[in-house]
């Protein structure tokens, strides 16, 4: 019993609990504007977590995560605008996630049962993303309507409604908690999954596909499942993002937008969801501050940080920080 509680007392867990508490009390000492910024950071963190799952855990390199996110947001936007009833929006969210999971599964089936792997998965998802973005960009005309909702081309879909729960429309604070709780749930599920059998099979696939296959794992099937879940998470992030900004546009599906979460996961610590969460929030916070400063050095500073982190801290900034702290502060190997 004592051993077990000691095993839980890692710097990763301590930092996480501190953050959890901070997140819970944040609304008491900040204004509505900053709170809504955090809702945005949290939804993008969920996107990053979807990559931790698919890349960090299962070793599948997806470069189309922003496209899945954007498509999820489009589906939510179309359904909720077409329905025009606040009460329906939470179902629109669920439908968007389910549709995207099905689509993710279909794409994954196409890839993994065809023996496509490694960097080629990244390339297929990248092409899928660019094709989707190019397509959505040219839907400005009147003929591009789904359920009577104009897709809006490059300017995107505007006026996406907020989510209501139990007849109560989620305003700034409520929406903050909504995204916060979803983020914590997703995070917990991903961390927990690591110590389940499913998690072990993911690790097995990541480390050595052919050996896992020889041990009797149905590798493509597991890959399809994890890819579909990750696509669903990306769509969830997209829905939250579109609710936050009441807006989604082809720009959000771009190659750059797909690269950013990959970069976050790689720099924070690929195999560690806590590190991803920390780095994602810091990244969006920092990039917002740099933009607000009006300096044109924005991209240069971000680029330099990424290079420095990956060159000198290859395991990721926070992953390494956790293990160093465990070693030197908590005196544990």
């Amino acid at each position, binding site marked *: 019993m004592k051993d077990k509680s000691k095993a839980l007392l890692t710097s990763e867990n301590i930092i996480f609990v501190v953050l959890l508490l901070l997140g819970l009390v944040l609304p008491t000492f900040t204004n509505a504007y900053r709170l809504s910024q955090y809702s945005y950071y949290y939804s993008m963190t969920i996107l990053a977590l979807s990559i931790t799952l698919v890349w960090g855990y299962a070793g599948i390199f997806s470069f189309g995560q922003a496209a899945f996110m954007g498509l999820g947001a489009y589906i939510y936007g179309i359904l909720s605008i077409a329905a025009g009833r606040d009460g329906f929006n939470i179902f629109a969210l669920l439908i968007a996630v389910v549709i995207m999971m099905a689509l993710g599964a279909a794409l994954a089936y196409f890839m993994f049962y065809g023996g*496509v*792997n490694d960097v080629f998965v990244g390339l297929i998802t990248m092409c899928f993303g660019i094709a989707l973005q190019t397509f959505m960009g*040219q839907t400005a005309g009147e003929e591009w309507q789904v359920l009577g909702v104009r897709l809006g081309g490059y300017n995107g879909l505007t006026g996406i409604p907020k989510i209501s729960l139990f007849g109560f429309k989620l305003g700034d604070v409520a929406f903050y908690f909504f995204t916060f709780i979803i983020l914590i749930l997703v995070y917990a599920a991903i961390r927990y999954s690591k110590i389940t059998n499913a998690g072990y099979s993911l690790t097995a696939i990541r480390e050595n596909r052919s050996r896992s296959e020889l041990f009797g794992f149905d590798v493509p099937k597991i890959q399809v499942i994890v890819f579909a879940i990750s696509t669903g998470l990306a769509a969830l992030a997209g829905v939250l993002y579109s609710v936050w900004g009441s807006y989604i546009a082809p720009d959000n599906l771009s190659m750059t937008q797909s690269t950013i979460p990959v970069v976050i996961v790689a720099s924070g610590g690929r195999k560690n969801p806590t590190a991803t969460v920390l780095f994602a929030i810091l990244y969006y916070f920092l990039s917002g501050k740099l933009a607000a400063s009006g300096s044109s050095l*924005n*991209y*240069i500073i971000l680029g330099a940080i990424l290079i420095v982190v990956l*060159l000198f801290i290859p395991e990721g900034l926070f992953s390494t920080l956790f293990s160093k702290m465990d070693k030197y502060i908590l005196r544990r190997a």
Partner: protein
Amino acid sequence: MILVFRHLYLFLDSFSFLLLSALGLSIIYGMMGIINQAHGEFIMLGAYFTSLLSVALHIPFIISIFLGAILTGFLGLLLDRTIICRLYSRPLDSIVVTWGISLILSQGIRIILGNSVESISTPLGSFTIGNEKFSTYRMVLVAVAVITLMVVYYIFNHTEFGLKARATMQRSDIAKSLGVNTDKMYAATFFIGSFLAGLTGGLYSPTMMVVPTMGTSFNMQAFVTVIVGGSNPILGSFLSSALLGIVNSELSGWAGSFAGQIGLLIMAIIFIRICPLGVSGLVDRLKAVRR
């Protein structure tokens, strides 16, 4: 006759653009396994160097292109020695790092040199067939693309350097044990790749607006060509540029640039699914079957 020529012209134009965009990327990817996200920015640098040399220093255009490519090559070499060399064993991390480099390059150029530089206007004018006019420079680009490909082919297949480079690519550990300085091979490969990117930038600089973000407009086509080309950088780039050139020029001619672009992407997706090793993989397999 005129109709045939028009199709040929559009195909060759598309072919040379794809080939020149992709060759540098393809060599770096094929030889080193590194996906260079900053490839487009190297092309942009080549265009900047060429424009600055030819407009500000009045160096003849052809020499400017060459000097610009060499400068870009050395810059690539510098980045390789300082940054990329630490990532040889981590190809996925190299995607992130080269992306960081691309951010710094394009914004850095904007801060140092401003939002755009003047480039020389397209030389050589036009020629007429039937009653339609065609750009001469674009046909020169086709010739340059083919010559470049031949030179690169010669370097990698008929010189000692090429032999060592290919050995390094196939089995770096064995090459190393046989006394090949693999690090040096990688550095040289990165230099050649950056040089080719710079060359492309220089060649296309008169036909485009030279701005810090111009690199991104090469990226998509370059990546798709490399994907379809597969593992053998030289043969693959050649065959896939030819194949995609037909797809792109015919689709754009028939249904507009949008169809051309989407066509390229769909081709790439289907190709990876059917033969992940690309066109060159397909050729290798056919050869194996024959034997």
